[in-house]
């Protein structure tokens, strides 16, 4: 038996899933996308079933990709039962989705979640009455505390066996006439080819649903003229577009249902959220607080992380030295083992000190409900480069390390925003690239020129953002974002989220890091440095005017960015760079290192977040920017 959880964002759907799902939860992607959903085998009182946690949807009528995918799952995979989770504290709005789901005629159980929040707001709901009106069981729950959850699943299993699909609610008479005329014209045959009831299909077409319109056009091309005629009929009678007629009707139906089953008592005291938001969303204080949050977060992750990273890396270096002494420093075996150790320790050095605290912090901010507020505050600034307000979090954290920053793009709902943010954060100088800027530019050419590089970097990111968003325009109408109420995070949910995200790094990014590290060791073993410098010299010395010995350092910089500077010492045979490099060469080298190919761990993370093609694109895009900017610096020095 398969049971799907469907609900609007912030309804407590994930809390419900987490309260029953075991550690065997599988996170999978919808075919051909990076949008994921979780499934888990559940055993409850001797009954076992598969529970599917779909992305949150506000409405069945949607063009948002994630929401369309969730809808497609319901129609194509047809679960045995849907549990529709409602935030009881915003009941009237939530019921609009319930009314749409009833049209699908899939067995349904309504979970009236956050019943305590509703009570706090002074909303009292007559549960039996609501169940009667909807024709399906309604179970009140407080999912974060597990209250009502056993009853919910018990009822779900029973309802699935009985196949109870609830009561269809009719709109006003003239709208119903149009719906039934269209439903009859479409016929059961067309509808069942699409896996939906004909009434549902008729409503979708009247609501100008692009996906269904296209599907119907393919099966039944002649009918679109009739669809147009009926749409016009509706809009002429009501003086507004047909989709608006239907959705407004459903809206008032939901409001009527709400008034029928709920009593609202006025409350004296202002709710806590309003008091908190007076400061956190204040036009000036809000930004002070946001800056404080970002700074604290950054500081916690990176300054604490450094203290943990150093001893770990020392430990592995000692292990490598010990093995080197035993296996013979020059042996092929040691070369491979050393490469493995380097890659392995590189992973540990990222995971333990940085990723875990970062993911913990991010999950906390997410679960408390602060992220939408940050997005609200940053919306106009981030939008000017085509991004979402929430992107500010990965952006700031990227100055520490790109890997957690890319993991952080998961907080963005839409694939386009995730892609753009992931590509752009790789351009931000992380701690390792900062080392290069400091060691070469700040040390030899002065802090002012180093600062100039940071400014240049921001300009490049803004321009790159503009260019990318020109080719990937934002199809959504802009920010429309619900501010959920603040919640106390549940430790188990936070830990689970951290683990799922971490698992992805371990399984996808880490192997790339280890393999790359072994390959580089072998390059060294077979003394291919000269050969590589020769191959790259056309680019490094020909185009960029750098000493050809830097070729190999740039290759090592792909493994770990700080290696570029460490290897530079080795390649040039001196750590006094000013004695072998001109000012121009130092600037060109730094600027190129600042932008070109992200490090292997970052590439691995990109692959798991935006896919292979996204990773390859980033690789080419950043290299092109690096070369272009390095050439610009060269031209600048040539001109002055």
């Amino acid at each position, binding site marked *: 038996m398969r049971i799907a959880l469907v609900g609007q964002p912030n309804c407590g759907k994930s809390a419900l899933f987490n309260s029953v799902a075991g550690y065997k939860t599988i996170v999978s992607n919808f075919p051909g996308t990076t949008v994921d959903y979780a499934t888990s085998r559940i055993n409850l009182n001797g009954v076992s079933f598969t529970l599917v946690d779909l992305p949150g949807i*506000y*409405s069945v009528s949607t063009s948002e990709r994630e929401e369309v995918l969730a809808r497609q799952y319901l129609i194509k995979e047809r679960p045995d039962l849907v549990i529709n989770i409602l935030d009881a504290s915003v009941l009237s709005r939530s019921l609009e989705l319930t009314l749409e789901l009833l049209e699908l005629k899939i067995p349904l159980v309504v979970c009236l979640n956050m019943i305590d929040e509703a009570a706090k707001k002074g909303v009292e709901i007559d549960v039996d009455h609501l169940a009667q009106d909807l024709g399906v069981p309604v179970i009140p729950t407080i999912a974060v505390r597990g209250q009502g959850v056993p009853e919910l699943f018990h009822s779900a299993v029973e309802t699935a066996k009985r196949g109870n699909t609830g009561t269809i609610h009719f709109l006003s008479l003239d709208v119903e006439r149009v719906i039934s005329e269209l439903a009859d014209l479409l016929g059961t045959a067309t509808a069942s080819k699409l896996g939906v009831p004909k009434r549902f299909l008729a409503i979708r077409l009247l609501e*100008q649903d692009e996906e269904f319109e296209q599907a119907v056009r393919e099966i039944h091309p002649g009918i679109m003229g009739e669809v147009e005629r009926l749409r016009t009929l509706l809009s002429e009678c009501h003086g507004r577009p047909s989709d608006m007629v239907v*959705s407004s009707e459903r*809206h008032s139906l939901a409001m009527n249902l709400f008034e029928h089953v709920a009593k609202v008592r006025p409350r004296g005291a202002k709710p806590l959220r309003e008091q908190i938001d007076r400061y956190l969303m204040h036009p000036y204080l809000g930004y002070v607080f946001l800056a404080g949050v970002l700074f604290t977060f950054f500081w916690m992750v990176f300054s604490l992380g450094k203290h943990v990273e150093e001893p770990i890396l020392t430990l592995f270096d000692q292990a490598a030295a010990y093995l080197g002494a035993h296996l013979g420093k020059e042996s092929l075996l040691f070369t491979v083992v050393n490469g493995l150790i380097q890659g392995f320790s590189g992973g540990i050095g990222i995971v333990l000190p940085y990723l875990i605290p970062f993911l913990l912090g991010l999950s906390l901010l997410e679960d408390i409900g602060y992220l939408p507020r940050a997005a609200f505050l940053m919306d*106009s600034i981030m*939008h000017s480069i085509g991004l979402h307000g929430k992107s500010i979090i990965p952006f700031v954290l990227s100055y520490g390390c790109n890997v957690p920053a890319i993991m952080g793009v998961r907080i963005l709902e839409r694939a386009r925003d995730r892609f753009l943010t992931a590509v752009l954060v790789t351009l931000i100088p992380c701690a390792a690239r900062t080392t290069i800027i400091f060691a070469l530019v700040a040390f030899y050419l002065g802090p002012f020129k180093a600062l100039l590089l940071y400014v240049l970097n921001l300009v490049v990111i803004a321009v790159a953002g503009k260019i990318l968003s020109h080719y990937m325009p934002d199809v959504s109408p802009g920010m429309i974002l*619900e501010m959920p109420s603040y919640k106390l995070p549940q430790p188990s949910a936070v830990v689970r989220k951290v683990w799922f995200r971490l698992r992805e790094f371990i399984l996808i990014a880490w192997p790339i890091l280890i393999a790359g590290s072994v390959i580089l060791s072998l390059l060294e073993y077979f003394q291919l440095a000269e050969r590589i410098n020769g191959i790259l010299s056309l680019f490094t010395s020909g185009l960029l005017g750098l000493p050809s010995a830097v070729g190999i350092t740039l290759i090592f910089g792909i493994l770990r960015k700080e290696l570029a500077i460490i290897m530079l010492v080795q390649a040039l045979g001196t750590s006094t760079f000013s004695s072998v490099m001109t000012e121009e060469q130092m600037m060109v080298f730094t600027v190129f290192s600042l932008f070109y190919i992200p490090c292997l761990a970052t590439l691995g993370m990109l692959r798991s977040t935006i896919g292979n093609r996204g990773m390859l694109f980033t690789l080419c895009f950043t290299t092109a920017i690096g070369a272009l900017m390095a050439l610009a610096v060269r031209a600048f020095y040539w001109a002055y």
Partner: protein
Amino acid sequence: MVTTLERVKEGMSAVVRQVYGGHRLRQRLGGLGIHVDDRLKVLRTGFLGGPVLIAIHGTQVGIGHGMAKKIEVEVIEDE
């Protein structure tokens, strides 16, 4: 007084009269329970082209400046 949402002063209530955006904007607003004739309260106005924060149907929604311009509302004067 009829105006667009981004011009409503903080703390004022208003009723949605028209949505001038396309089908997608209507869909998105509809999903959040925002329809014509609904009553809302403006909690924060977006200064410098920032978004507007409204309270509606017991929840709060941030609406981008560009979107807010497409929502025509009637301000409820006396309260």
